[in-house]
Each structure stands twice: as C-alpha cells, then as structure tokens.
C-alpha cells in the first residue's frame, strides 16, 4: 500500500488510509500544536460525531467547507485551515453557540480552562447581537455522586454521552428533546455513577459538567500542572497534578495512548488525597527503653535504626534479618534497598503487594504503582519472608511501607511482636508503629524524583509536585544514610537519584538503557519481561 500524503497549511503529512483530516493532524502531533483546528464534539478517543461544525476547513477541489473530523484523507489532498471562509464559518459557529449560553464566566468554575471561552476570544464576535431571552434551564443538577451539571452551559457536543456509551459502556446519558429545546440528561431512573464517571468533566469543553470534588476549590489559573503518575494501582495512569500553595488539588488524566488513553478511574483520580491528607507519617520515631515510641529527628532515627541493625547482625549474623520492599516506592528507591540488603548480607526479602478488583479498562488487581519494578529488581513474593518469620528464623525486619499487613498469613501486626528489631520506612501511619522500633517518614511518589514500572513493564517518570511540610526523605535517601551509618563503603556520597538511576540501568538487565532522564513523558518499556505474574 503506497503511503498517503496530504498538505495542511504547508505541513506535509504522511498518513494512514482511513484516517480523517483531524485524526491525521492528531496522529502527527500537530493538532492545536502548529495547526489549530478548533473543535468541540470531536475527541481523539471517542467516535466521530460531526455535529458541532466548528472544525470546518477548506479542501482544494471541494466546493463547500468540510468538517475536518469526518473527512477521510485522500492522497494529494490540500487542506487550508486559515482562510477567510474558514474564519467566517468559525465565527458563525461561535456566535450561534453563545446565543443561548448564560455567559456567566465570572462565576463558572470552568473559566480559565474553558474551550468556549478560549475559542470565543480567538474566533468569535465581540458583541452579542441577540435581543431575545436565553434558555432558562436546570442548574446544579446532581447527575450522580461525582458530577454536577449546569444545563444552561451545555453546548450539546455529546462527548459525555458517547463516553458513557463507548468507554465504560454504561450509557447513562442522553440528549432529550429536539432543536433548541435539546437537553442533556440521565435516562429516567439512571444515575451517572459508573467507576469512570468523572472523566466526563475532563472532556466537557465547557462548564456544564464539573466534579463535586474539585469545583470551587480554586481558580484553575492558580494551578501548576505537574506531570506525574497515579499510584492507585499498577496501571500507572498518566496524570497532571494540579498544584498550588504546595498542595495537590486534583489529578486530571494526561494522555498516554500506551497506558490510559485520556482516561482515569474515579478511585485513582481521588487518590490524590492520600498525598496531603491526615494519616501521613510526619515525624520519625524511636522506641525508648520503656517501650514507648518517642518522636525523633530523622537523622537520629536513622542512626538508631543503623545501631539496632548493626547490633543484631553482629550478634546473630545477617541470616536473621529480612527485608520487605514496597511496591509504592520508585525503582531508584527499590534498587537502593536491594543494594542495602546485599551490603548487609541479607538474602531473605520480598515485595508486599495488595491485590484487589480489576476491570477490563484500566483498573489492575495490584494496588500499587511499582510491583513490576520490584519484581524486575529481583524481589520475590513476600510469602517467603512471612514463612521465615512464622518459623522463628527472623529476628530483624526492614519494612518499606505497610502493605505486608494485608498478608493474611502474617496474622496482623501481632505476627511481628516478638521480633528483636523492626524498622519501618513509610509515607503513612499504620498499625506497624505498634511494634516498630524505629519509624522513618518517607516521601510519596508525588514528592520526589524517580521512576515507576507499571504492570506492563513501562517505566514512567515522577517528579516532586509538592514539598512535605515535615522532614521526610525518599526511601532511597533514608537507606543511603543508614548504609553510611552502617559503614558501607562508598555510601557516604549522599543521595543522588540520577546516579542511582544510571547505576540501576547498568546493573539490572531489564533496565538496560532506561534512566530517569531517558524515559521521557510517555515512559519506556523495560528491556526484559516483567509484569503481573497472576
């Protein structure tokens, strides 16, 4: 099959057969990024609707303007998106879309990220010519537990209708009535309560659909978008973290066609709250002679942990020590943990991963973002550690996180009560603190540089979006300092996540050529096989 070439405003594009002009621009990464073809109803991950009529372009040899979203490419096609006719058509659509719009931007939460606002400024008319009253419709409609709907602001692009039909397949929404009496509503008796419902707020180009969680929290122009990864499960959905005042206000899905298209599940979206909410471990602790966990500086707690470990290993050898890795930590943290255990001579280790429900779309059974990374690093199932604990062969345990408490064989925190030394590195408080001898606060994935490996072995970048208001280091840094205190050779250089990443890529075969700086925003697949064994 010979390639199809089309020209759009002087750009030459090589495109595959069967694509439309707008799809071809999107495939080439040019849409709204070099070639601006404004559009409302078209969405790259939904079926073509062709009804908003805003994406009309001029195509040589075709007498009428054509909608770019639904016009199939032909070899040699020449498309112009900025002619006077196109401009007039866009102006016409914009004027008509505003005939019934309430123009309530000052009190609308979408203002600042509203395509109606943006395109009206860019392509619309300055003065309204309407003398007639605008449609008075329902306000503050609760379509379901997550979404609030303003019927007056809706421009009837039907993206949300198609989303519910085509992505979760639940089809709760429809457009009822006809003509300018058309309204979006849920079908009688239906609620918009599918597990992906909040995506409709992202794809709604106007302020009609907003999430109950985010609306009126902050004006979006105060938010900085920091690219990151959802940590709710091992799918590793790409998100932008909306940050202001050193606080994460929301996750919105960031497009990655290899991972999550443009979607995220509601549970994952809401998991941003675990970053700043109560329950974080905000202070290091060291158990005193009376058996009380006393607050301590991180530095002194690291020293106390090293001293306990050192004593134990000197007395009984490293064979009585075991390590439990966290699937929430970054690859760099986990690699450092692996080296830490090696230096200490500890052979017994595993990774604890909570398992839960999965679905056919995005949600994976492993409820942590980096289980595959831990496995690629050589951490086996945590059951081998638990077996040894139960057999009485373990006296000292270094724990990352508290997911191990979900292992039924452990018998809860009581299963660790008799251990001589329990050292816990964690982002959050847990029952482990009842038995821990030292607890060390560490950073969440949204608070540090690093990479995470998703269920399919794609290594993706995280970076600090917020700074903890308390003293906390990444797991890797805590371990590095502990190693230094234990006298490991070369561990006195201080924590350098880039150096660790480079060393990981040279040491672990699956990570060959993959570093924090080489994965880019879209991530890169591991060199070797990895993934969910179940």
């Amino acid at each position, binding site marked *: 099959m010979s390639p199809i070439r089309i020209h759009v405003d002087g750009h030459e594009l090589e495109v595959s057969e069967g694509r439309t002009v707008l799809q071809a621009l999107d495939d080439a990464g040019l849409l709204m990024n070099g070639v601006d073809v404004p559009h409302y109803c078209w969405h790259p991950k939904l079926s073509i609707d062709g009804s908003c*009529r805003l994406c009309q372009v001029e195509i040589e040899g075709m007498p009428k303007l054509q909608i770019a979203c639904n016009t*199939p490419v032909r070899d040699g096609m020449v498309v112009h998106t900025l002619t006077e006719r196109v401009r007039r058509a866009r102006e016409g659509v914009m004027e008509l879309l505003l*005939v019934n719009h309430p123009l309530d931007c000052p009190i609308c939460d979408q203002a600042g990220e509203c395509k109606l606002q943006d395109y009206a400024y860019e392509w619309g008319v300055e003065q309204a010519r309407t003398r007639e009253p605008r449609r008075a419709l329902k306000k503050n409609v609760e379509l379901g537990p997550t979404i609030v709907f303003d019927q007056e602001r809706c421009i009837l692009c039907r993206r949300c209708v198609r989303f519910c039909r085509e992505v979760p397949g639940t089809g709760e929404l429809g457009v009822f009535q*006809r*003509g300018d009496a058309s309204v979006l509503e849920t079908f009688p008796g239906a609620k918009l309560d599918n597990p992906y419902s909040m995506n409709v707020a992202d794809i709604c180009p106007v302020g009609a659909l907003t999430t109950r969680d985010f609306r009126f929290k902050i004006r979006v122009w105060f938010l900085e978008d920091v690219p990151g990864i959802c940590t709710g499960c091992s799918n590793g959905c790409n998100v932008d973290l909306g940050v202001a005042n050193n606080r994460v206000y929301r996750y919105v899905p960031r497009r990655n066609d290899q991972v999550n298209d443009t979607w995220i599940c509601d549970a994952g979206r809401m998991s941003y709250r675990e970053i700043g909410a109560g329950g974080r471990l905000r202070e290091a602790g060291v158990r005193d002679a009376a058996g009380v966990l006393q607050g301590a500086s991180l530095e002194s707690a690291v020293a106390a942990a090293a001293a306990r470990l050192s004593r134990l290993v000197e007395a009984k050898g490293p064979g009585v020590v075991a390590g439990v890795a966290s699937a929430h930590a970054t690859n760099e943290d986990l690699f450092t943990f692996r080296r830490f255990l090696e230096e200490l001579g500890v052979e017994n280790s595993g990774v604890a991963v909570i398992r839960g429900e999965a679905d056919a779309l995005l949600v994976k059974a492993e409820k942590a973002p980096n289980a595959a990374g831990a496995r690629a690093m050589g951490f086996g199932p945590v059951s081998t550690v638990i077996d040894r604990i139960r057999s009485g062969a373990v006296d000292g345990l270094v724990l990352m996180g508290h997911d191990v408490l979900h292992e039924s064989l452990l018998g809860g925190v009581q299963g660790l009560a008799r251990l001589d030394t329990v050292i816990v590195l964690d982002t959050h408080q847990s029952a482990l603190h009842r038995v821990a001898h030292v607890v060390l606060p560490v950073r969440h994935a949204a608070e540090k540089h690093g990479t995470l490996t998703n269920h399919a072995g794609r290594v993706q970048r995280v970076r600090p979006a917020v700074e903890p208001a308390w003293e906390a280091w990444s797991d890797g840094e805590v371990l590095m300092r502990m190693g230094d205190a234990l006298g490991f050779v070369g561990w006195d250089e201080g924590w350098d996540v880039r150096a660790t990443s480079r060393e990981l890529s040279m040491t672990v075969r699956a990570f060959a050529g993959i570093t924090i700086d080489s994965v880019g925003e879209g991530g890169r697949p591991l060199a070797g096989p990895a993934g969910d064994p179940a």
Partner: protein
Amino acid sequence: MGLAVPYVTGYLSEHFADDGFASLDGYERRGGYQAARKALKMAPSDVIELVKASGLQGRGGAGFPTGMKWGFMPTATDKPKYLVCNADESEPGSFKDRILMERGPHQILEGILIAAWATGASTTFVYVRGEYEHPARCMERAIAEAYQKGYLGPKVMRSGFRHDVVLMRGAGAYICGEETGLLESLEGKKGQPRKKPPFPAEYGAFGMPTTVNNVETFCHVPHIVARGVEWFRGFGTGKSPGTTLFGVSGHVVRPGLYELPLGTRLDEIVFEHARGVPDGRKVKGVIPGGMSMPILPAGQLDVPMANEFLRERKTMLGTGGIMVMDDTTCMVRVGVVVSYFFRDESCGQCTQCREGTGWIHKIVERIERGAGVPEDLDVLLDVAGKMEGQTICAFADAAAWPVQGLLRHFRADFEAHVRERKCPFPASFEL
C-alpha cells in the same frame, strides 16, 4: 372524487379515478406488473443503465439522478442490500405521495421490485409518515396481495429472485424524511441524520448497503421500463424529463394535484390549472416546491417548473408543493409560521441549525409583534447565511432558504412592521 384524483392526470395517475386500480387485479388489468416481468429478464446492470439514460431525477426534493444513485450500490458484497421507500412525506405543501399510496400502491411496489432487481436488494423498508394512517393501510393491503400472488417473497414471479417488503410507520418527525434520519428512525433510534461519509450505499439501514428513494420516484420506474427512455424523455425538459404531481394549495380556486410535465410554467399551473386566486384578489407570492423552497413574487411566476430554470430565480422544485398566497398575506407572518416549523423540527445536533432556527424564529416573531429594530433584517440574513451549507444534512438550508427568499422579495413587509411598530396587514391569516 375530490382530492383523491388529480385534476390533470398523466401516466402516473391516469387510472386513479378507477377504485379498482388500488387492487392487484385492477392494476394488472391496466397492464400492471408487466414492466417488472420484463425487468426480471434483463441484466440488473442493464436496468440501471436504462434508468440512467432516462434521466429520471428523484422526486423527494433534492432531484438527485436516480440511476446514478442505484449505481452507487456495491455489486461485490456478501452483505444483504436494502432499499427504502421514503413515504415520510412531511414537507408542508406536499401531498402527492399520499395519493400515490392510496390510489396506486401496486405502481409503487412494481417500481420497488424493479429497483430491487437492479440493485440486488433483498428487502425494501417502506417508511410511512406516522400521520398517514390510511395510506399505510393501502400499502399494507397491496403488500399482502403481492405476497399472496407470489410477486413478493422467496420466488418473485417464479424467478429465483427473493424480495421482501416491510412497512414501518414513522412517529411524526419531519427530519425522518431526510434519508439518514429515516434510517436511524427505522433502526428504532432517535431520528437524527447521520454524518456522511459513510453514505447509505455503503453503510445504510442496519449497517447494510442501502438506497433510499421517494415514493413517486419508484412510480416512474415501471413506465420507463415498459415504454422506454425515448417515450419518457418525451415529457418534461431535456434536463428534467418526465411528469410530476404538483400539489397546489393556498389561495387558489381549485387546490389539488396536477400531474404535468416538468417544465410546465408556474403561472400556467397557478392561473390556468388551479384557476387563480379567488374573489378577484391578486397573487402576492408563490412557494414553488414545498415550504423549504424560497418564495417567488407575483412578477416571477413565468418560470418553467424545472430545477435548471428555478435555480436562476434562486429557488428549487423541491417536492412540487406549490403554495399560493394572495395580496392580503403578511409575509412576516408567513415567516413566523415557517421559522416556527423549522425551529420545532430541527433535530438539534448541529450547532448552526439548533441555535439558528430558534434565533430566526424569535426575531421574526418579535418583528411581527411590532418590536423589531432595523438591524434585525440584516441579522436574519446573516444568521441564515451562517446556517446554509454547513451542517450534517440539508435541514439547515431548508430552514435558511425561506427566510432569505422572504427578505429577498418582501423586505418591504418586514420594514413596514419595524417602521409602524405593528403588523400592517390586518386582513392577513391569523397566527
């Protein structure tokens, strides 16, 4: 017989006065189904070529060449192919398909059989306007008769050709007369036209290759097959051959149907056939082809009723529904009626149509109330211009054109409303 029989008949309607013509026996006694027998002995492609050569244009409003449309149906496909008989006649001013169904249903079925053979269609869906209770019964009776006689079913006329006809009733939406709006409705969905591509010949009813033809279009086909291209081209103009059923309504002495050759002059139809305006009044304007076609003023009725001539006067033949308005008529009120209709019937998916039809109606209604401002007239034309030619289907054009036509020829009526701040035509029809 009143309305049931055209005042002037032609080959389509010559036997409509005969009540028996609606039955299969009566139709066959008048030579019916001979053309279908003939066509079944021809190669399908030859039938298509014959219809192409005849120059038959669709009678549903757009005037698309019928043979060419049939030729779009794929031949190399293993999917079932479908025909649709569009009997959703809902254009205000049009009532020909109703009479064709009531008086000559077998003429339609014979046309369907020939078209089915030509296109390889296995089933025809006859989509009848919801309000057409009696025509639907007439069609149903004819379909049952044809099955009984073996003219429909597994072996049409003892050939190896199978064809089924299924009748489906609409639910009263104008937009379901648009061919893809019809297909959506046929599938049980909300009547909203589909974006094109894909066109129905590729992806039509239930996703299968489909051709949609108007009731009257089917009726011409048996005559073309029976009597040949040359005979057919003996009627009408070079570009627009054949007769059509003009429906005349409004301020005329003799409203009704008139089967006349295409190209018959509009003033001849209005003044001679329909006998002009009653009570010594004068014609003010005439809508030549159903409500969506732009109006012509009294001075422009000397036009042959064929698209190649009507286009020069910025209007079209449409469905041939001629609506005559006398000199008492307020053209702003006409605008209110027309724009309300299109506002009410717009399916609402395309921005320009959904918002434009409503805006236009509100402005025209305000002008009629005496609350118009001079700028309104230009806004009306501008909005109509922004709707025209930019939407999924031709509905927005159909809504824009009448307003443009009224302002083109009767701008003075609108200006008088604005100036006098009231309607200056007290004797006009009431809203």
